[in-house]
């Protein structure tokens, strides 16, 4: 087994754009669930909308800023569509509607009737030009050891992580403010907050929109190193984001970032080790395809262990969680 390679790939995941995208999506979900108590089981849809909302206008010739704004606008509209009918109702209604809506949008972009716009099952590619064009890093490869990347790859990483940090600062500022106090109050008991004269519906909507916008930007970062593939946006994606958020701690600032790093490093390590073991014959009964699936079984087991033994996540406050009603 080539341990150097296995560890090299794993540490590379620490700063990969995918890790950044998942972290950002988990930050958005943290606003929804961790701080406001909204059960959003359709975060994958916000990533999808970000991806297509960016790629379609870009392929149609729109400049970068317009494409990004389009993605954000689409996610705001989507959040309103989800929120207007459900946020006045009990919390579980939002859960059902988000999970269904996420599947609906995925089927919509996959339909062959829309092939000209969405590429149907093949997805979209060739939309990186506008983003690459503003890359200030001269061509070439930079870095050392496992962190050796091309100019474009560095550009994606830098932009991705800067956005993640900005989003974390945003969440920090919001949650130390009276605004954050109101949404946390809503998480605890929305009738109590209502009785104190706060427009609970409006705050829930603001939270849904905000977390959704972060999800859609995460969707853009996610596709910058790859193509848009509708198959990526299943409920599985939503549950990975939930895993990451719970792993780090749902109502924490650094939780989503560290959670995402751990998630991807562990996935990469297990893949490397399993494939290595299969090649060397130690696990001859497994095929590499099966090994890929075993990794996700491990994710499920890890999530279960996490919820049982450390429900507050890595950064969460044990005391805070132990009071959950």
């Amino acid at each position, binding site marked *: 087994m080539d341990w150097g390679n296995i560890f090299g790939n794993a540490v590379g995941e620490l700063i990969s754009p995918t890790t950044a995208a998942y972290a950002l999506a988990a930050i958005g979900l943290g606003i929804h669930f961790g701080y406001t108590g909204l059960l959003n089981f359709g975060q994958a849809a916000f990533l999808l909308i970000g991806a297509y909302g960016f790629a379609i206008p870009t392929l149609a010739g729109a400049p970068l800023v317009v494409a990004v704004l389009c993605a954000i606008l689409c996610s705001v509209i989507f959040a309103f569509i989800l929120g207007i009918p459900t946020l006045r109702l009990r919390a579980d209604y939002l859960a059902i509607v988000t999970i269904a809506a996420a599947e609906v949008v995925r089927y919509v972009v996959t339909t062959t009737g829309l092939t000209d716009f969405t590429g149907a099952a093949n997805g979209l590619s060739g939309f990186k030009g506008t983003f690459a064009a503003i890359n200030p890093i001269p061509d070439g490869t930079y870095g050392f050891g496992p962190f050796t990347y091309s100019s474009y790859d560095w550009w994606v990483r830098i932009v991705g992580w800067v956005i993640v940090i900005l989003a974390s600062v945003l969440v920090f500022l919001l949650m130390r403010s009276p605004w954050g106090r109101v949404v946390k*109050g809503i*998480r605890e008991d929305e*009738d109590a907050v209502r*009785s104190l004269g706060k427009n609970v519906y409006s705050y829930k909507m603001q939270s849904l929109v905000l977390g959704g916008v972060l999800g859609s930007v995460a969707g853009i970062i996610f596709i910058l190193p790859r193509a848009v593939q509708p198959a990526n946006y299943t409920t599985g994606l939503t549950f990975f984001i939930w895993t990451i958020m719970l792993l780090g701690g749902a109502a924490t600032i650094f939780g989503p970032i560290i959670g995402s790093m751990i998630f991807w490093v562990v996935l990469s390590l297990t893949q490397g080790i399993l494939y290595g073991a299969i090649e060397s014959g130690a696990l001859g009964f497994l095929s590499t395809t099966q090994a890929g699936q075993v990794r996700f079984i491990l994710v499920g087991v890890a999530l279960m262990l996490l919820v049982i033994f450390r429900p507050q996540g890595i950064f969460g406050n044990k005391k805070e969680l132990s*009071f*959950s009603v």
Partner: protein
Amino acid sequence: MSNLPASTAPASGIPTAHPLVKGEVGPGCAKVDPIVIADSVTRQFGGLKAVDVDHLEIPRGKITALIGPNGAGKTTMFNLLTGFDKPNTGTWEFDGKSLAGVPAFKVARSGMVRTFQLTKSLGRLSVLQNMLLGATDQKGEKLFASLFRPLWKKQEEENTARADDLLARFKLDAKREDYAASLSGGQRKLLEMARALMSKPQLIMLDEPMAGVNPALTQSLLGHIKNLKEDGTSVLFVEHDMHMVMHISDWVVVMAEGRVVAEGPPETVMKDPAVIDAYLGAHHDTDLGELMEDGPNPVLEAERKAHEAHPEAEATGYGDTPPAAGVEETKR
């Protein structure tokens, strides 16, 4: 108008005039200066008419007790007046403005703030944060302003000072930084009341504020409620402890089976046959003969007996008949 009307009450029988009242004293009587006026408010749960109030006026600047056996519709009436539940029929106004159909948060903003019979403390917020949430017109509660602390820092400091002051008055200052979830039941009641006061309401509606609060603290709470009146706040409260009702209220409204069956000053309302009826209905287990005797006060006696028979009832706050407690659990 501010003196207690005790002198106008004859030693026996029910007075027909009172300085708070315009016209004759009786269920649904008009007040000289009402802050709340409700008309034909009804609320039906399936076949049960939980609230069926033809007319009710709450006097301004006074302490009004709303009493009645469990299931009389007191909490439902609170929910309706404050926009937490929708009536089948009815209109009501607060301070001259119609509030029918107005959402709960706007009712609270207009100056009518309520607490809940089943306390709603925000468990995973600190006691201080709970208090600060009660303050109104906070600049930092707007999404964009919240990002810039200088815009709301000063207001936050003022609110914190007010909150600390109230916490000290309610003997919760030592718990300031603790999670509200770590408070005892009685302390949560206190916190909820203090939090409601953060908004400086014109009318505060307390649903069983003393339930579960220890007797020593009850005394000082009574003092706070009286002080509220001095500050010009009107108080409407639901309470099962008749001694407290007698002690602090200026006016008593009695509900039974959804209707207002009697009204009057505390000294005399308990002698109203309709009240005795209402309470007897709730105390099947009480010796009727004894109650009907010319005791000092049949209702007080009934209450006392109920508490003796079920001492836990006081601690849990479910007033008289424990079987009704299960019902109370099912709603806000």
